[in-house]
């Protein structure tokens, strides 16, 4: 069953252009100039119920605008969409009962009240029966481990605690489809991990479709089964995560803190290892896991450097996207 389809979905904003300086401001007062800014350009999507989709792109690519059109917040300039069987901007109220939204930068929790009070309000917003609300609340509190801060005003919660409450609140009415816009922004590694686990669990238990934007490769790798990359408002890539992992996410970044300065000038090149930065006390290199293992890559440096500390990271998402753009451009040249 289809959870979501779009056809030629586009959104153009009119943006005022002001010439530089005070004289520009005065001119703009009498003769304002407007320019069309294409935020989303003819996007076609088809997502099945229960899928977990990462919707990626650099800043300004149109991710948030697309989510806002799919949730009925924005009206499109042209195109069609059907979400959970409804046209979002026409049947916004009916659709809202079926979907949940988490905007990392727009909280639905009341800032001065404890989360439990917002849960109560949300239960009224979604017209849950008292018995259903009580059972649902108990389940989410237990699974999201909200007990310790359920009665603390939101303003006094840490960002991680707040996000956990935020996501639990969005699951309260059992949405068929959950839209998450940067849900792990600003969170530490442990909290990110926990939030991913909780979303994955809901996806498995309730077959909730997850549509997520993120700048974190970890969210994509651990949570999603499919990746859609958009650029300049259009779809650039739409593939299973496994394939993207094989082609792109196979690279890891290794950061070494060195105990003493190292001289790598005479060191032979190792296939699959690409040195990114080499400074006194610091060495950063990327490892292509398709060609060489982490341990093997580290072995190449043993004896040449003294390691004080070591971290292995996913490459930043921007780098992954850059790589995808590169591959796409190469394919276009080839074809």
């Amino acid at each position, binding site marked *: 069953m289809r959870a979501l389809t779009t056809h030629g979905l586009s959104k153009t*904003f009119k943006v005022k252009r002001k010439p530089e300086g005070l004289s520009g401001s005065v001119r703009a007062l009498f003769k304002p100039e407007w320019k069309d800014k294409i935020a989303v350009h003819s996007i076609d999507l088809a997502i099945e119920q229960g899928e977990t989709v990462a919707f990626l792109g650099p800043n300004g690519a149109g991710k*948030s*605008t697309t989510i*806002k059109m799919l*949730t*009925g*917040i*924005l*009206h499109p300039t042209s195109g069609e969409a059907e979400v959970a069987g409804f046209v979002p901007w026409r049947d*916004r*109220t*009916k659709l*809202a*009962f079926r*979907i949940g*939204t988490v*905007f990392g*930068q*727009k*909280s*639905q*929790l*009341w*800032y*001065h*009240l404890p989360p439990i*009070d*917002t849960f*109560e*309000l949300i239960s*009224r*917003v*979604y*017209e849950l029966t008292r018995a259903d609300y009580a059972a649902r609340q108990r389940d989410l509190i237990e699974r999201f481990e909200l007990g310790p801060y359920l009665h603390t*005003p*939101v303003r006094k919660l840490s960002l991680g605690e707040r996000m956990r409450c935020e996501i639990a609140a969005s699951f309260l009415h059992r949405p068929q489809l959950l839209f998450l816009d940067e849900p792990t922004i600003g969170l530490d590694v442990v909290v990110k991990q926990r939030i991913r686990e909780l979303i994955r669990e809901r996806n498995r238990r309730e077959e909730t479709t997850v549509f997520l934007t993120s700048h974190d490769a970890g969210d994509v790798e651990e949570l999603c089964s499919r990746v859609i990359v958009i650029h300049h408002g259009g779809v650039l890539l739409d593939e299973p995560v496994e394939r993207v992992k094989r082609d792109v996410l196979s690279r890891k970044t290794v950061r070494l803190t060195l105990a003493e300065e190292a001289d790598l000038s005479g060191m032979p090149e190792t296939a699959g290892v690409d040195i990114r930065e080499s400074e006194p006390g610091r060495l950063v290199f990327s490892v292509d896991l398709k060609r060489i293992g982490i341990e093997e890559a580290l072995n190449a440096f043993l004896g040449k450097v003294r390691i004080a500390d070591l971290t292995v990271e996913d490459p930043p998402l921007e780098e992954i996207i850059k790589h995808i753009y590169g591959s796409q451009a190469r394919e276009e040249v080839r074809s």
Partner: protein
Amino acid sequence: MSTEANRVGGIWRFLLACWKANFASALEYRLSFFLLAGMMLLNNLIWVFFWQLFFSRFPVVQGWELRDVMILWALSAGGFGWASVLFGNYGRIANIVSSGQLDVYLSQPKPVLLHVLASRMSVTAAGDFLFGWLIFAWVGDHTIRGFLLFVAGLLLTGLLFMGLMIVVGCIAFWYGNSEGIAGQVFNSFITLTTYPSDIFRGVARTLLFTVVPAGFISYLPIGLIRSIDPAFLIAAVSVTFGLMAAGCTLFALGLRRYASGNAITVRQ
């Protein structure tokens, strides 16, 4: 029928939950709550003192006596008070629209305008509402008829405040940041509702019953409370409901043009 009854029941339960949350949120800062409400009450009482001094020198001005001006203040403050306590966002629509704060309301299954309006409680307005009833207790007509007429006056006043401010706030959908103009309209409207309408003549009086329709509040003590003037009452009710209808229509049309935004927002 039962579906419609369920829908209306759902909206009432939702409104009650909103008001409870607003009140609980205001009580998070108890001292601030009582100070703000108390200061507004005091502020209004100072004006009562001023008008008392004035009417002790000039007992009748254009047919208005001290009692009429007191009732005017009671209606203006009380009407503004209940509207701002229960639907405290009506004066902030321009800001909410232009700063992209409608997203959360639009993603939830309740009427957007009602949800926006009921999501804030003005604490100072609780003092205004109390002031209105104190003045009624002092100079009002303590019969059932007097009580009902006063309640009707409060209702019309509050709805007129809301209708006008929703219409002005909706300008933000078309012209972006219109907080300035909304603030100016609000200030001139509230000021003009506290002066007897009969002291204005000519163009000023025309403006008072058209562009800034404060006259439909400031004539209530004469046209509704002292004796019912049917022509005035029909006009006042029509303008009030006309403004409310215009506000709801403009808001619904404006939502098609809503552009959202990327500001970080929290619900207070």
